[in-house]
């Protein structure tokens, strides 16, 4: 079976960790026999207003003369430059993706049996404009669906994509609930859940006996949305009230980096907070091995891969009720950690983690590891996707 995957999220030179979950999903279906080509529409920021015709003509001229001069091809992956006008919103991105994808396929055609688009908008809609009658599978992952639905045209385009796709997938039931709330039960009846792959091949399970809860770890972006301010405040409270030797290792980067450094030093915990920056996935295991607990205080997650990787490593996880947490590992919360209410303040989070430390017997990390291996393994996800592809082709 030949599959074209169209995704705006994919590892690249500039962001080697962007969309690694899409890459792993692709590897999962390749492993069981699919031949995959990847097309990556890439945003080239443009000024507001329509893209001048002369720019589009120049792109066409270059593609006609030498397609790979416009579309960089690396292995099975083709990068598709898409000029997206500033402030043009989700519809602007979708239209730009549709135009550039059409141009790419005009000069570098594909021979797939089926197209799998990641994200309903902009990608799913864009693909539908280019291949209106071919089998289309769409996977939704994005955490900004509410922004899409706020835009009337984008919402209508999303609904059009949802209806016309041969199969529509959400990576968690939390996302499905969002679609249900927006479009109603009947419209989303066709939506299926196929999670992201959590590849535990390089994640070593370690039974920690009685965890000390002294070594915290956070893996993710340093942004307010990811709960980093609350994380630092909670760690400071914990360090001050319960465990003065505790440390926090932060794997990732983002706009709050300077704030994190300043806050930590101003509170006297500068030496206890270690910002190690973004790390390749191959090194995540060693960070997880040296930690006692992963603390992830984002208020909104569609999935939450880092928490599942930590659980697979036998690490207790403390998270907020952010959608992704209860959806992906809520059923093993008692054995794998703790999911707290969104409104809980940093002092209470510190107290809860201290309480968890005092009752280690309730944790059974083997349960979490088994759950991750069973539910999110490449084989399980790959098989589910292949079944959907085959069903679409047979219909």
């Amino acid at each position, binding site marked *: 079976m030949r599959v074209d995957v169209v995704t705006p999220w994919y590892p690249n*030179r*500039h962001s080697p960790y962007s969309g690694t979950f899409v890459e792993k999903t692709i590897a999962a279906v390749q492993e069981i026999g699919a031949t995959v080509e990847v097309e990556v529409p890439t945003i*080239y*920021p*443009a*000024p*507001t*207003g*329509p*893209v*001048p015709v*002369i*720019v589009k*003509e*120049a*792109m066409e*001229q*270059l593609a006609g003369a*030498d397609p790979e*001069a*416009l579309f*960089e091809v690396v292995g099975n992956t083709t990068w598709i*430059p898409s*000029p997206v006008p*500033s*402030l*043009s*919103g989700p519809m602007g991105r979708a239209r730009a993706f549709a135009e550039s994808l059409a141009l790419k396929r005009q000069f570098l055609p594909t021979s797939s049996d089926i197209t799998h688009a990641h994200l309903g908008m902009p990608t799913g809609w864009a693909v539908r404009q280019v291949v209106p009658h071919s089998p289309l599978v769409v996977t939704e992952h994005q955490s900004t669906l509410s922004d899409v639905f706020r*835009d009337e045209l984008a919402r209508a385009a999303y609904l059009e994509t949802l209806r016309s796709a041969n199969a529509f997938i959400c990576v968690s039931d939390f996302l499905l609930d969002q679609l249900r709330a927006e479009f109603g039960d009947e419209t989303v009846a066709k939506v299926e859940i196929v999670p992201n792959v959590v590849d535990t091949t390089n994640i070593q399970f370690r039974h920690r006996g009685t965890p000390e809860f002294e070594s915290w770890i956070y893996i993710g972006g340093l942004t*307010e949305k990811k709960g980093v301010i609350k994380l630092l405040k909670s760690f400071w409270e914990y360090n001050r009230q319960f465990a003065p030797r505790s440390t926090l290792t932060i794997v990732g980067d983002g*706009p*709050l980096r*300077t*704030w994190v*450094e*300043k*806050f930590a030093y101003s509170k006297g915990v500068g030496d206890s907070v270690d910002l190690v920056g973004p790390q390749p996935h191959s090194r995540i295991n060693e960070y997880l091995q040296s930690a006692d607990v992963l603390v992830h205080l984002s208020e909104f997650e569609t999935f939450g891969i880092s928490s599942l990787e930590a659980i697979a490593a036998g690490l207790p996880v403390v998270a907020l009720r952010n959608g992704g947490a209860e959806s992906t590992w809520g059923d093993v919360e008692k054995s794998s950690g703790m999911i707290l209410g969104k409104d809980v303040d940093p002092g209470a989070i510190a107290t809860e983690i201290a309480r968890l430390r005092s009752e280690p017997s309730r944790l059974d990390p083997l349960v979490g590891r088994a759950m991750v291996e069973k539910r999110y393994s490449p084989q399980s996800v790959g098989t589910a996707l292949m079944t959907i592809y085959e069903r679409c082709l047979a219909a």
Partner: protein
Amino acid sequence: MNVAVITRSLRAAACVEYMASASGSPRYIILTADPGAFDSERQTANFEIMRLSPGSLPIDRIGLVMATRRKFLRWARSGSRFGELVESAARRVKALLRGGSVLKPVDDVSPAGRRPLYDRLVEINSDEPIEQIFVFDLFDLPAVLAFGGDFDINVVVR
């Protein structure tokens, strides 16, 4: 010698990463209206920067806008809570403008409108032959293709 053309600097990081990853460490000249955008980028690539001074074209303003934006973000993200709040308010204003036609494009991207870019490429090429031109801002493509056609020089978008 290669030339990277990136009048607007929004993809400066992608440009530097591309050059850094090129095999054989070829030498690059970066042509940009916003050299400041490359200050904080990784300096491992083998490149020198030449500023495009396009006179009456609005590209000068683009450089100024980008430099101001960078200074604002550096300040807003310097660690104060106030800075975060101001950035968050600015984002909300930007969101309100989204979809509106408050800002009109002013840039002339035709080869004639980008004559200074064309002339600069001619100048560089006469000093040392250009092997290849890498375009990182699609709005530069018409002028660069015109130059590439006239002088038989390979052009690629990255």
